[in-house]
């Protein structure tokens, strides 16, 4: 500690170090609410996930105690991913699908499951029965 105040150059470097830390804090998405809840296991990551339908998917699945689920083709988006073209990659929006899979884990996505998540405005087959509806998604049994 003494070495910092021993000479001006050390003090200047220490000041530069602190400035760097403040800079990192400022360019990040630091939020006091996240810090307070950082160890809260029931904390809903509203700042991490920017699409509310992803957060709602977990709410619907947990509410009905579902262990495996399926999603509509519209949620999956592209099926044959073509990563050999940059333009194609830019057009492909897989965020919702990928994030639903990772966020809901250990509830697993299973193509054999009879529980389906659909967007609220999506048309569904007559064979399916609506179990629940949220603001963005609906849960069906097919």
């Amino acid at each position, binding site marked *: 500690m003494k070495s910092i105040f021993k000479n001006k150059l050390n003090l200047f470097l220490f000041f530069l170090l602190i400035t760097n830390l403040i800079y990192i804090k400022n360019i990040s998405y630091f939020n006091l609410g996240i810090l307070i809840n*950082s160890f809260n296991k029931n904390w809903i*990551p509203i700042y991490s996930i920017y699409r509310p339908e992803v957060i709602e998917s977990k709410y619907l699945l947990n509410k009905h105690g579902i262990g495996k689920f399926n999603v509509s083709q519209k949620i999956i988006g592209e099926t044959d991913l073509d990563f050999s073209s940059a333009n194609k990659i830019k057009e492909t929006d897989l965020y919702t699908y990928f994030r639903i899979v990772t966020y809901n884990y250990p509830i*697993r996505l299973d193509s054999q499951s009879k529980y389906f998540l659909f967007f609220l405005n999506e048309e569904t087959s007559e064979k399916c029965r609506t179990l629940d509806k949220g603001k963005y998604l609906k849960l069906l049994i097919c």
Partner: protein
Amino acid sequence: MLKQIKRFLKIEVVVSILLLLILLNYFIMFISYNEYVIKLIFSLYIVTILFFFIYKPLKFFHLKITLIVLMIIILGNPTYSWDAWSIWLFHAKRIFFEKSVIAQLDGYAMWTHNDYPVIAPTFAASLATLVGGWNNIFPKLAFLLMYFPPLILSIKIFNFRYHLLFLILVLFILNLFLINGYVDGLVAIYFSFSSYLVYDIFVNKQKSFYYLLITFCFFNILSLLKNEGIVMVIILLSIIILINISKKETLQNYKKIIFLLFSLIPILFWKIACINYDVNNDIINYNALNSLKNMIFNYNSFKLVFNLLILDTKFILSIIFILITFNFTKNKKNFYFSLLVGMTYIFSLFMVYLITPYDLSWHLSSSASRIIMPPTLLFSFFGLLQIYFMKEKI
């Protein structure tokens, strides 16, 4: 003098304990997921860190304050970066819930790069086991905790003023990668320190047992962090052999070399497990040779890789920095060693980008700035070492 030696020895012991605990945690989890043992190992890790913080709290005050502030920033940041939530934290989540290191090898969610090594996710899963639950934020803290051994070791390398400079360089180069849940920052710092240790042991003839042990642990961790880490360790091992052959000291150092070669065993186990479960890498696979044949004579690909990889601002600055320092210090050993390590790695990066099955411009734009970070830190670190060696007449 005696006090100084004692201080160094203490630092080496603390670093060795931390590194061995990271590796022990991984191996215990690999064998069986015993919650009590995992909690014990992680608690020991935290106790060792607390000892470092509490024992003479005002000593190395600048490093301690940096680490504390980074811990606060990491815990107050959302996990929004793609690789952080889709790869590293998802793998950690899988290990935590399935209670198995090889959980990701079951073929579920293949797009999360299931072949990636898992030492960092394993450490995050251990923290979750200690806390007794999961959320999206705190497991990232485990990644920051893995920075502690090299950063504590850096106290031993530099004096106070140069250590301040070193920390400023680390913060400038790694920046958000220290807190965003990526492991690229870890790869960069472990690579730079592994290179330094190799330089000190085999070029400067440092004879400390702790140094050799720390190098062994660094190699282990580096190879288990990311696939790039494996390439780095192979490069460093090859350079060690090359140095010893050129100096005709192979027989003299063969025990050290064989000992360090053993550091590749854990990653070999991981790769064998991947092959057994039929989990392939998306870039290095059977099609790689065909891709290379098509791309190697393509001038535009070279130009694109050069533009997006080599013309990175921080990388260019690090090159200028090391060239200027070399001009003043004329430390040939240090300069040529860092150049050899850095350039070999950059050559391997060129090869990887030339065999990519993805669109090259997309692949480069989404990864080049973080892939070039290890050589950037390496050149800056060795540049700073050159000035330090000259000024302090070491």
